[in-house]
């Protein structure tokens, strides 16, 4: 449209610099609120997805514990809630050719070296043949001796354990001493087994020590083709035939991860929406100053109309005004939001490594665009009102 309207809008904003800046400040705050909340949310999602391990797709089968859902991870052993050897064989048969790994787990006291403090850690008992399929080592070698064990990387760091170190299991080493043959790579929190702070022993050693032959805490199925949902239903169909008395609870790690991400996505949206409230406040102030601008310039508008400016021209002039405030405020807000996002991430997530990401770029773009849209939307009614003033009324009031 006509460049002269652009000129007039610019000059009018400059003439009323203070109030234009205040309106801009509102938009700046709105954009900063929305975008920095978005950045925080994105950071949260990244942090969670980084710490939840993605060690391939797996399905976890646990004994059915009645109505409620199951907690994730190994957890303690309850005598009457165990999977039987028969359960395991059934699972193994229906999921073939996928690998089914029976898992023993318990919490146990232990000591590293002489006179050291007691440590309490999870002990997993796994068939040695299956371990290489589930766990990667960062040092040492896999263990297939009942006198050996593997330890998680956090465990190794925290207790200064190296390949070759010895760990006494049980209070006062009542269950004997195991030699560490390898350190397991960091694996993060996982739905199947969380090994970072744990000790992994052979199933034989575990069964002999705790007398739990043929009783498993869970069975982990490694799904090779990624179709975890089908494996889950197959197992449920086979083992939970009796609807009233279910045998197992089956967790689809992939679906659960997706649910977790969705939940965080929802939280991010919700938090951003709270930021949106400040945008509404900013919109109201834009609306206000636009109405002021229209009321002050009733006469000028009347003259413009009487000497040949169409309604649309008047409208354009005011939309430009709202647009200039919106674009400047939103872009300034976007820039500040990056700084604010940096600050909040550093403060609340203790890290800023998730700042430069595509999702943050989208969040910033959306925030800035939203700010501009809000300004334009709030400028529409005042602009419309200005365009539809009766030029006679406007020039009559001297």
């Amino acid at each position, binding site marked *: 449209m*006509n460049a*002269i309207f652009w000129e007039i809008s610019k*000059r009018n904003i400059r003439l009323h610099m203070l109030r234009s800046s205040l309106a801009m400040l509102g938009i700046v705050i709105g954009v900063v609120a929305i975008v920095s909340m978005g950045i925080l949310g994105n950071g949260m999602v990244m942090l969670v997805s980084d710490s939840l391990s993605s060690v391939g797709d797996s399905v976890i089968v646990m004994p059915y514990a009645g109505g409620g859902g199951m907690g994730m991870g190994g957890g303690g052993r309850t005598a009457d809630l165990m999977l039987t050897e028969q359960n395991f064989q059934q699972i193994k048969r229906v999921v073939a050719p996928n690998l089914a790994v029976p898992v023993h787990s318990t919490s146990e006291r232990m000591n590293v070296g002489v006179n050291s403090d007691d440590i309490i850690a999870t002990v997993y008992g796994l068939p040695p043949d299956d371990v290489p399929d589930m766990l990667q080592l960062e040092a040492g070698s896999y263990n297939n001796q009942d006198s050996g064990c593997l330890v998680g990387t956090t465990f190794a760091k925290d207790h200064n354990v190296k390949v070759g170190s010895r760990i006494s299991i049980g209070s006062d080493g009542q269950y004997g001493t195991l030699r560490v043959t390898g350190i397991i790579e960091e694996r993060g929190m996982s739905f199947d087994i969380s090994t970072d702070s744990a000790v992994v022993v052979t199933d034989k050693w575990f069964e002999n020590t705790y007398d739990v032959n043929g009783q498993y805490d869970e069975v982990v199925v490694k799904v090779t083709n990624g179709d975890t949902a089908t494996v889950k239903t197959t197992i449920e169909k086979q083992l939970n035939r009796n609807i009233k008395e279910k045998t197992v609870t089956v967790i689809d790690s992939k679906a659960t991860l997706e649910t977790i991400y969705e939940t965080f996505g929802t939280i991010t949206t919700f938090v951003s929406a709270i930021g949106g409230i400040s945008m509404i406040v900013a919109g109201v102030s834009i609306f206000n100053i636009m109405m002021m601008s229209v009321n002050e310039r009733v006469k000028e508008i009347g*003259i413009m109309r009487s*000497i040949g400016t*169409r309604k649309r021209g008047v409208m354009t002039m005011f939309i430009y005004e709202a647009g200039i405030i919106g674009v400047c405020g939103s872009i300034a807000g976007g820039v500040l939001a990056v700084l604010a996002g940096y600050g909040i991430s550093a403060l609340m997530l203790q890290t800023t490594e998730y700042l430069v990401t595509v999702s943050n770029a989208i969040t910033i773009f959306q925030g800035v665009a939203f700010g501009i849209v809000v300004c334009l939307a709030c400028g529409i009614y005042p602009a419309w009102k200005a365009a539809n003033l009766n030029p006679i009324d406007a*020039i009559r009031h001297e």
Partner: protein
Amino acid sequence: MEPVIRFADVSKVYPLRAGDVTALSHVSFEVERGEFIAIMGPSGSGKSTLLNLMGCLDTPTSGDIFISGIRIQDMTDDELTDLRRDRIGFIFQYFNLFPLLNIIENVNFPQMMKAGEVVDETKAVEVLKSVHLEESLHTHTPLELSGGQQQRVAIARALINDPDILLCDEPTGNLDTKTGASIMNLMTELNKRGSTIIIVTHDPTIAAYTQRTIRIVDGRIA
């Protein structure tokens, strides 16, 4: 030849809550090209109403108005706006220049509306010269000018699109006698060069510059 303005039995009624106000009733007259006319009458008699109708700022309640042969009723708002822009020049008592624009931009404004873009200043400079405004003032803003100078700028703005008619509502009402006289001399000069001019005024000495006077009393031509 078609008259520039033709009013045929025109009435204007303002419907108000306290009762209808008949500002004009059954007015008929014609203005020929090149005429210089004064409209006189007591306050509230309907002079401004008449001028606004001639200027297509308003439409009559009944009767027909023709501007350069075009009937203005039933025209859309945009069409009326373009008619004002291209065929009519307005001059107001309070000058009504745009304070945010400089003198050249003010004068160019109707031309920019017509072109739809910013235009160069050649024509504005030429027109400002014809209304005798010093060139040193061209880049000033209106509020830095005297009343007489502002009115000259307003006249230049009214002339920029070569209108058929100049409509002036009390153009000297806000000026001292001497400045008023110089503005009227300018008007006379413009009329001699071919402009059709209609001036609303209370002042008989202003009316004396014109060739014909239309008197209005209580919304009727007397």
